[in-house]
């Protein structure tokens, strides 16, 4: 590691247990799960449906929490943080990109991107500038005042990415970001994620079903029934 002070990786999951209660029964998802991800890495996670991919992303984003084990990201020990602290942490350190974009339908592209900024003490001018910069970055500056319903899937996902980027987080979590897109749009989105990773140094963890998409990642993990399989391949 180039940073002598940091003895740990950027992201460390160690000995994580996670289970859900379903109708009085406890269904284990993970037992003793451990994983490290370095700063600036682009990691893809594949695996059959129900294997726990989203659950991992949710824990990394602080919107779900492990039952046991340690989860640290940067200097934050997520397993020790309460809901309020996690929310504040999330607002600053993570951007989440969803499969179905999850834009608010009554807001324009620019307004959707602006939501995370409502939490920040910014004046109108610098706020506008930031939104512009980010929308231009993802290539839809000319669609700023369109409603989601007036945008294609690929364009909506760009807005989703812009929203995830607006607070300038180090970590991007993407849950099947191209799962709902055609090949061409999917490729564009993947190229953009690669750009964010290579040029802006964002650490990206991406869940995908699409083997094509994994080509953009530094590393692909295969999850099966809550366990990482050994066919880990370096890109």
């Amino acid at each position, binding site marked *: 590691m180039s940073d002598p002070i940091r003895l740990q990786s950027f992201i460390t999951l160690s000995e994580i247990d996670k289970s859900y209660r379903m109708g009085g029964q406890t269904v284990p998802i993970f037992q003793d799960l451990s994983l490290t991800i370095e700063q600036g890495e682009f990691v893809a996670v594949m695996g059959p449906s129900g294997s726990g991919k989203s659950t991992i992303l949710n824990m990394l*984003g602080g919107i779900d929490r492990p039952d046991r084990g340690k989860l640290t990201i940067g200097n934050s020990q997520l397993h020790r943080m309460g809901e309020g602290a996690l*929310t*504040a942490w999330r607002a600053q350190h993570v951007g989440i990109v969803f499969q179905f974009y999850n834009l608010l*339908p009554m*807001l324009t592209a620019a*307004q959707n991107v602006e939501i*995370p900024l409502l939490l920040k003490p910014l004046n109108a001018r610098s706020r506008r500038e930031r939104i512009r910069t980010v929308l231009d970055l993802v290539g839809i500056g000319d669609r700023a005042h369109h409603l989601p319903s007036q945008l294609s899937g690929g364009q909506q996902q760009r807005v989703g990415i812009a929203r995830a980027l607006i607070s300038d987080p180090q970590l991007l979590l993407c849950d099947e970001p191209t799962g709902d897109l055609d090949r061409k749009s999917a490729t564009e989105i993947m190229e953009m994620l690669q750009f964010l990773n290579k040029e802006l140094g964002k650490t990206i963890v991406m869940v995908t079903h699409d083997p094509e998409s994994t080509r953009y990642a530094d590393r692909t993990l295969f999850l099966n029934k809550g366990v990482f399989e050994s066919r880990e391949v370096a890109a």
Partner: protein
Amino acid sequence: MTFLGLASKNAWRKPGRTILLIVSVTIAFALYAVLQAFLNGASGAAVDQGRLVVANGASAAQSLPVRYLDTLETLDGVDDVAFSARMRGFVGTEDNIAVVTAVDPERGYRVFGQELGLDPAMIEGLSAERDALLVGQMLARAMGWQVGDRVSITGFHDVQKDGSRNWAFTVAGIFPGKTASTDTYFAIAQYGYFNAMRQNGADTVKNFVVIPAEGVDPQSLAPKIDAQFANSPYPTRTQSEKQFLQSFMRQIGDLKAVVGMVVAAALITIFMIVVNTMAFAVRERTFEIGVLKSIGLSRHRIMSLILSESLLVFTIGGALGGILGWIACRFADPSIGLVFSVAGWVNIAALTLGLGLLSGLLPALNAMRLPIVQTFKAR
């Protein structure tokens, strides 16, 4: 975009529903405003605990000889005495009722002047001409009378000596009443004129109002007064003004209770529907709330977002309803006696705030509590 902007965008997402909600809230508050004005008015007659009313002992509807005045005035413990006769009549058509109270101007001024809002100039005007008439503001507004008008009131029972039932007066002043809720739907004439002109019932009065002297207990003075007239042809019954008015008030009170209950039932129904619809509108967006949370909006941000949305609906509805109610009260027939007070506005504001918060609070608490992972399942 501001936080409130986001809330209002949320509120207007389904404009049809939001407008319907606002209309419901408006109607409810307009109803509420009018109900309040109704309960506030009508029985607003100022009742002075200390004053005594001396009426005919056989029936308050019968009269007493005016000469009782001398006895009453010289009685120990009596400070002042006023008396009045009453003429019920109408203007033009029989349903256009006007009541005239005939008094001695000076005495009337001393005893009723303050609560009716009389001033010395009015009393001067009343004394100046025999047929002068002081008209209460509500009556004047209803009849469209102004100072200087010649008016004619037709008595239901009171006939003049020449057989005419039409009593002519000149409006010498308009009295406002001490407060907005004072009943001023009547007029005041000179007893001397009324008494001299009438065919029947000469030298009688409807009742006397006695003001006890300083330090005299009205409750012990009352039996002393009745004792004075116990063996006369017209025994009296002396009560506090409050007791005297009570039987009359009870009827109005019953009416008010019934109206109040009916309107309250309607209001509660409307508000329940509104609160439920708002709750439903928020529940519908559980998923979106999860998205906002995952973006980093805290619980209390989400809470204030939803509360501002429900407050928006209630504030607009409450304001419109209050204004509608106020307009209704202004243009309603004054004889209904609607009184829209400042307290009315305060009540409406408080209810607006309370119900707005309540209707947002239940769904907001729910949305806030739900873990994000659960909200994502609500898609």
